């Protein structure tokens, strides 16, 4: 039965993985990744809990101001990198000049952005770019604009509507002239759209897209039920030996990342964190305890309580990588893949634990992740404390691991018995 299901899943996984737009999105978020990690380091450092005790309030505020720019210039304007990244990677996938695709996307996005800020008193300040439009708030408009702008740009280039320089002209000059007509046409389209929207409807596309698309989608994605569905599918894909996150995250990342940046913006402003579910929640509380399925505790159990040689050997092999949340040895060595004995704990445990984490955070027992990005290879407990800026965040992981261990134990024991019997038979035969 599993083999037959697998035959259906492999093509789906391949399609999702190879889909041009999804893989461009994935790469674009990867472009933002080192930058958000850089920003996150300084968010973590300036919010260390003991700073309040060793610094005066004034000194601490000053200290935060000094280093605040590190995250404002990265996570605070994350849409800029995603927009540029989409333009760049999408152009590259069509084999047209990628750097211009990135630049044209970015300008198209800026053309739709109002360069004014309305202050609380109703006063309008012009000649400024509102930072929040370049952060979480502009994320979906940015993604949509970048895809559309690049599609227009590359079509014009591919139709060969370009200015060609005679041979002998330096290639950088020739390339910028070649991009001239496609750039002017693409940018004029977005300029005209903006003129229409602002003059006829007296609003801007930022607000329209935010209210009509981003807020509903992101709101949906922040709920526990869709999150459990995502976890379920990630586990199912891995059960068939396919990289669940690569497949599911390419769809969910825009939403999870937007939630992350919204939390970060609230955190930096000293406001209450609006979301529990976010990218860090998924990474720290569904993967960050030994890899997908939170298998580190399963590895500990193999080493401590299991008797069969097979499980002990997998345990020894898996414990090192498991500390850094790499668990391919468990998935393929135990194996988890297509193993009917472990399908129940493999799917149930992460869903139960996700529910427990969500519950602990919604009743205020544990603070939700602050929105800082933590590399997924940081070991458990440490990553939990870093993500929530609270010891409780680490302790929650320990509780989660106990739960995973309890759910797994009877199934692991069954597997151990079967293995022991097989090993004895093999010895007798030899």
């Amino acid at each position, binding site marked *: 039965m599993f083999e037959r299901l697998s035959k259906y899943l492999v*093509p789906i996984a391949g399609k999702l993985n190879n889909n041009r737009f999804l893989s461009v999105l994935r790469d674009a978020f990867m472009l933002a990744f080192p930058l958000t990690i850089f920003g996150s380091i300084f968010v973590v450092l300036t919010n260390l809990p003991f700073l309040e005790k060793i610094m005066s309030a004034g000194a601490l505020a000053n200290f935060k101001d000094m280093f605040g720019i590190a995250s404002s210039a990265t996570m605070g304007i994350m849409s800029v990198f995603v927009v540029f990244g989409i333009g760049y990677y999408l152009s590259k996938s069509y084999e047209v000049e990628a750097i211009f695709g990135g630049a044209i996307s970015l300008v198209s996005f800026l053309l739709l952005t109002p360069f004014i800020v309305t202050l609380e008193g109703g006063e309008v300040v012009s000649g400024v770019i509102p930072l929040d439009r370049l952060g979480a708030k502009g994320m979906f408009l940015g993604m949509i604009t970048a895809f559309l702008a690049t599609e227009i740009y590359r079509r014009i280039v591919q139709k060969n509507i370009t200015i060609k320089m005679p041979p002998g002209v330096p290639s950088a000059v020739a390339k910028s002239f070649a991009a001239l007509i496609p750039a002017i046409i693409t940018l004029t389209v977005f300029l005209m759209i903006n003129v229409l929207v602002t003059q006829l409807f007296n609003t801007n596309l930022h607000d329209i897209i935010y209210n009509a698309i981003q807020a509903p989608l992101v709101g949906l994605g922040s709920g526990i039920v869709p999150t459990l569905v995502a976890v379920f599918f990630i586990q199912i894909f891995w059960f068939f*030996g396919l990289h669940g996150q*690569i497949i599911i995250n390419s769809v969910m990342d825009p939403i999870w990342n937007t939630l992350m940046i919204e939390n970060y913006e609230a955190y930096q402003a000293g406001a209450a964190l609006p979301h529990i579910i976010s990218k860090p929640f998924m990474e720290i509380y569904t993967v960050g305890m030994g890899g997908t399925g939170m298998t580190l505790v399963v590895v500990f159990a193999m080493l401590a309580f299991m008797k069969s040689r097979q499980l002990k050997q997998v345990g020894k092999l898996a414990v090192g990588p498991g500390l850094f949340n*790499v668990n391919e040895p468990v998935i393929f*060595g135990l194996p988890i893949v297509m193993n009917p004995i472990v399908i129940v704990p493999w799917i149930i445990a992460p869903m139960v634990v996700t529910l427990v984490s969500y519950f602990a955070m919604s009743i205020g027992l544990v603070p939700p992740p602050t929105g800082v990005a933590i590399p997924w290879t940081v070991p458990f407990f440490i990553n939990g404390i870093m993500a929530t800026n609270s010891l409780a965040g680490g302790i929650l992981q320990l509780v989660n691991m106990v739960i995973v261990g309890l759910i797994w134990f009877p199934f692991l024991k069954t597997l151990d018995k079967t293995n022991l019997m097989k090993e004895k038979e093999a010895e007798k035969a030899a």
Partner: protein
Amino acid sequence: MKKILLACSSGMSTSLLVTKMEEYAASIGDEVKIWAVGQDQAKKEFANADVVLIGPQMSFLKGEFQKEAEQYGIKVEVIDMMAYGMADGKKAYEQALSLM
């Protein structure tokens, strides 16, 4: 010199296997170059490889990779699941040799 390219999602988990394969190759006196890359990098490296092995979690890449690899006349195969899971350098290395 035998050149074996391993590909997975980010090149992280296959790098475990690289070390084990190198150790085994060295133990039988083979001169090898074995390296791991992420899926986006992999195709660019095909020209330098004698054979391409894919991590089993990315098995859905096989068809696409195979098309590309034909240009270089090299074979693409998914690493045996057990060999991958147990980081069995010998088994994975022998699988690579059988494809060259």
